[in-house]
C-alpha cells in the first residue's frame, strides 16, 4: 500500500515539476518585462510555444548524425530524472535515496555533455563556439558546487538531499555565516548553470555573446521543444535545490498527512514565485559580462565556498 502511495507521490512530483517549469520561465519573463515597463507576454506563453514546437515538423541538417536526434531526448530525460530526485514540496520521497546531490549534479553534467556534442554535430562554427563556452563555464562552476556540497554535508552529515532538507527543516540552524556564503555562491553557480544574465542572455541570438542558444541553433520542432522544456526544468530544479537547502521550512514529509502535502505544494509554489521575482529583478539590474570575466565571477563563487568551509571549521572549533 505505502509503496503505491510512495510511487504516487513520486509521480506527482515529477508531473508537478514538468507542469510548473514553463510557468516559472513565463513568470520570470513577465516580471522582467514589467520591470522594463513593458506588458510582456502572458505567464502561460511558454506552454503555447512548447505545444507549437511539438506540432511542427523537425528540420534536420542533411549531415546530422543520429546523435543529433537522440540528444534532445537524452537531455530531457536526464534533467527530468535529476529533478525527480530533488525534494520539492516533500522530503523522503521513495526515489530520493536513489542518488545524492553529487549524482544530481552529474546527471545535469550528462545533459550538458549531450548538448555540447549536439552543438558540434552539424559542424557549424556557432555550434562549436557554444559548446566550447558552455563546457568552459560549467567546468568552472563545478568546483564551486562541490565546495557548497561539502559545506552542507559538513553541517548535515550527509549528501542525501532529502535528508539534508529534513535536517535543515527540523532544527534551528541559525544564521551561520558559512551558510550565508554558501547560499551566495550557490546562487552564482545556479545563474551560470542556467545561462542567465550576467553569464549568458537567454533572450538574445546575438552571435558573439550567446552560449546556450548557440548550441541549439540548428534545432527546431519537437527537438527544440524538448530542449526548451529541459532548460525550464533545470531552472526549476536549481530553484528547488536552493529552497530545500536554505529555506526548507514548511516542507512536508512523504508519509505526512494529505493536507500537509497540499500545504507543502502551496508553500513551494510561493517560494518559487518569490525566487522568480528575485531572479527577474537581478537580471534587470545587472548587465551581461564579457566571457572572460565569467571566470572571475565563478572564481568568486569558489572562494566564497572555500570561505564558508573554513568558517565552518572555525565555528565547529576544528
Amino acid at each position: 500500500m505505502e509503496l503505491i502511495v510512495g510511487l504516487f507521490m513520486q509521480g506527482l512530483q515529477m508531473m508537478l515539476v514538468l507542469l510548473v517549469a514553463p510557468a516559472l520561465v513565463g513568470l520570470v519573463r513577465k516580471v522582467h518585462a514589467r520591470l522594463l515597463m513593458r506588458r510582456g507576454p502572458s505567464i502561460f506563453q511558454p506552454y503555447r510555444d512548447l505545444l507549437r514546437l511539438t506540432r511542427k515538423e523537425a528540420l534536420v541538417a542533411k549531415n546530422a548524425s543520429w546523435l543529433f536526434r537522440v540528444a534532445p531526448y537524452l537531455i530531457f530525460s536526464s534533467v527530468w530524472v535529476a529533478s525527480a530526485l530533488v525534494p520539492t514540496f516533500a522530503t523522503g520521497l521513495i526515489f530520493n535515496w536513489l542518488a545524492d546531490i553529487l549524482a544530481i549534479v552529474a546527471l545535469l553534467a550528462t545533459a550538458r555533455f549531450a548538448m555540447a556534442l549536439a552543438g558540434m554535430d552539424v559542424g557549424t562554427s556557432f555550434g562549436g563556439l557554444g559548446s566550447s563556452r558552455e563546457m568552459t563555464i560549467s567546468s568552472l562552476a563545478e568546483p564551486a558546487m562541490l565546495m557548497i556540497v561539502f559545506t552542507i554535508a559538513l553541517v548535515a552529515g550527509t549528501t542525501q538531499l532529502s535528508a539534508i532538507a529534513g535536517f535543515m527543516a527540523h532544527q534551528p540552524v541559525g544564521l551561520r555565516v558559512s551558510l550565508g556564503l554558501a547560499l551566495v555562491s550557490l546562487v552564482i553557480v545556479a545563474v551560470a548553470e542556467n545561462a542567465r544574465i550576467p553569464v549568458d542572455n537567454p533572450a538574445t541570438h546575438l552571435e558573439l555573446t550567446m552560449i546556450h542558444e548557440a548550441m541549439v541553433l540548428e534545432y527546431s520542432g519537437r527537438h527544440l521543444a524538448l530542449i526548451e522544456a529541459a532548460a525550464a526544468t533545470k531552472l526549476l530544479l536549481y530553484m528547488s535545490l536552493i529552497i530545500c537547502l536554505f529555506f526548507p521550512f514548511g516542507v512536508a514529509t512523504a508519509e505526512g498527512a494529505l493536507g500537509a502535502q497540499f500545504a507543502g505544494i502551496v508553500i513551494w509554489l510561493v517560494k518559487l514565485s518569490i525566487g522568480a521575482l528575485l531572479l527577474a529583478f537581478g537580471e534587470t539590474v545587472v548587465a551581461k559580462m564579457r566571457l572572460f570575466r565569467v571566470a572571475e565571477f565563478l572564481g568568486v563563487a569558489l572562494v566564497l565556498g572555500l570561505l564558508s568551509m573554513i568558517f565552518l571549521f572555525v565555528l565547529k572549533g576544528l
Partner: protein
Amino acid sequence: MGIMVVIGSCLALFFVLAILTLLWPGIGLRLSYGATMLLCLIILFCAASSLLAGNSITSVMLPIGLPNVGMRLRIDALSAFFLVVVNLGAAISSLFAMGYGVHEKRPGRVLPFYPSFIAAMNLVVLADDAFTFLLAWETMSLTSWALVMSNEEKETQRAGLVYFVMASFSAAMLLFSFGLLAGAGGAYGFDEIRASNPSAWTAGIVLILVLLGAGSKAGVFPVHVWLPLAHPAAPSHVSALMSGVMTKVAIYGAIRILFDLVGSAMVWWWAVPVLIVAGATALMGVLYALMQHDLKRLLAYHTVENIGIILIGVGLAIAFRANGLNAAAALAMSAALLHVFNHSLFKSLLFLGSGAVLHATGERDIDHLGGLIHKMPYTAFFFLAGSAAISALPPLNGFVSEWLTFQSILASPGLAQASLKFLIPVIGVMLALAAALAAACFVKAFGVTFLGRARSQAAHEAKETDNYSLTAMGLLALFCLMIGILPSFAVDALRPVVGMLTSGTLPPQDIGPAPLTLIPFANGRSSYNGMIIFIFLLLSGGTTAWFIHHFASRAIRFGNLWDCGHREDNPLAQYTAASFSQPIRRVFGGQVFRAREQVDMPPPGDSAAAVFKSRLVDPAWFLIMSPLARLLEIATSRTDFLQRLTIRRYLALVFLWVVMLLIVVAIWN
C-alpha cells in the same frame, strides 16, 4: 598451489611464444596474438577465482634469480586483483590486435616483445622479493621501450630516449627503497621486509622514493614527462596496454610497498605529499590534455589525470588509516582500486578507438578529422561510451569511482589533523575541476574527431574497422556500462583486497533500501543506485519519445544546415581543437603553460590564409627537465678536452695523483 603452477606455466609460455615469433617470423600474427589472448584469459580466470575466494595466499619459491634469495612468487588478494586488471586489459588488446596488428609494417619488431611485455607485467604483480620485482619491472620497461621503438617516425627517437632514461630513473629510486628496506644483510624477500618493521624515518624516505620511482612509471607530475611522448608512439594496442595497464602496475608497486611492506610504520603526514602530488597530477594532466590536438597524446595526458585521481584515493586511504578511521580508509581504498579497474577499461577502449581511427585515416591530428561518426558508426559509438565513462557521467563506471572518492573526501572532517582538514577539501575542489575539465576535453575530442564535417580527404574516405577490433571495443564498452550500473558487485569483489590493505571494509552492499544500491557508509549517509537511475533514464526518455511520436508530430525534413543563415561550405571553418580549448587556454594556460597565441593576418587585399599558432610548454619540462639537460650539456662540453690532452699532460695527471696519494699517506701517518 595449483593456481600458481598454471599461472607460472602461462608466463613461461609467453616467453616461449616470444622466442618462437623471434626465430620464426613467418608465424601468423593472428595466431600469435590469439595465443597471447588465450594465455591472458587463463591467468585472468585463475586470478579472478582466487580473488573471489577471498584473501587466500599462495606462494612459491623458484631456485632461480638471486642466489640464496631465489625467485619468490606470491598471490594474495592485492596481486590477484591486479592480475585481473592486467590480464583483462591484455586479453582485450590482443583481441583488438588480431585485427589491427595485421596491418603492422614490421611485425618482427612487435611480435616478440608483445607477449614478453605482458608476461613482465604479470611477473611484477606476482613478485614476492625485491630482486624479482625489479627484474620484472625493468623487463617491463625494456620490452615496452622496444615496442615504442618499433614505430619509425622521427620523434620516436627522442620519445624512446626520454622514456628509457626516466624508466631507469624510477628503477633506481625503487632500488634505493628496497636497499633501505632490505638492510645491509640483504634480506630481499618481501616477508623478511614485512617482518622487519622499519623505523619512521626509513619509512618516510621510502615513501618519497616510491613517489618518485613508482610515480614516474605511473606518470605522476612532474616526473610524467616521458608518458605523453612514449605512449602515443607505440602501436595503438600497445598504447592501450601501456596507458591502461602498465601505469596500474606502477600503482600496484606503490600500494604494495606503502601499505603492505612498510604499512606498519604509516603515519598521517604521508598523506600530505601524496595528496598534493595527486591533486597537481590530476589537474595538470587534464589541463594539458585540453591543449592537445594529437588524439593519442591527449589520451596519454588523460592517463596522467586519472593516475592523479587514483592517487587521491590512495592518499585519503593513508590519511584515514593512519587515523584509525578504518571504514573511511576502506572507502577511499575501494574508490582508488575501483578507479584503477575502471580506468584500465575505458582508457584501453579509448586508445583502441584512436587506433581504429588512426588505421582508417592515417591521422592522429584531430584537426584533420571530423565527421567520422558517419563513416565508422560503431567505432564512434564505442568511443562515445568511453568518453562518457572517463568524463564521470552516470550511469557509466567512471562516475561510480569518482563518486566514491568524493564520498571519502566528505568523510575527512573526522580526521584529527587540522592540516588535513583544510587540505583535503581543496584536493576535492581540484578533483571536481579535473572531472569537469575532462568532460570538456572529451566533448572536444569526440566532437572534433567524429562529429561535424570531414576536414580532410583521409577523413572523408575513412572505412569502418574490422570485426576483431569492434568486438574488443564493444566488450570494453559493455564492461564500462556493467560496472556503472552494478557497482555494488565490483565493490563487494574488492572487499578482501581492501580488508587486507586497510583492516576495514565497506558495509555489505545488500543493506541498501533496494538491491544493487551502493552504500559507502553503514550509517546510510548517502547512497547511489546506478541500475535504477539507468532504468529511470531509459523509461523517461522512452516514454517522452513515445508520447511525442504519438500525440505530436513525428514529421521530419532534411535540409541544409542553417547556421544563422551563414552559408559556409568550407569544413575548415568548423571549430577545431585549438579554437575549442581557447577559452580554457586563456583562463589557465597563460600562467601554467606559458601559452602564447600568435595570429598572422595577411594584409588587406591579400587572399592568403591567416595563420594561427599557439605554443605552450609543459612546466615539468621548463622547470626540471631542460635545466638538467643543460647541466649535462655543460658538463660534457667542459670535460671533453680530457680526451685530447698531450701524453705529457696525462703523465702529469698520473704524477699528481701519486703525489696526492703520498700526501694522504703522510697525513695518515
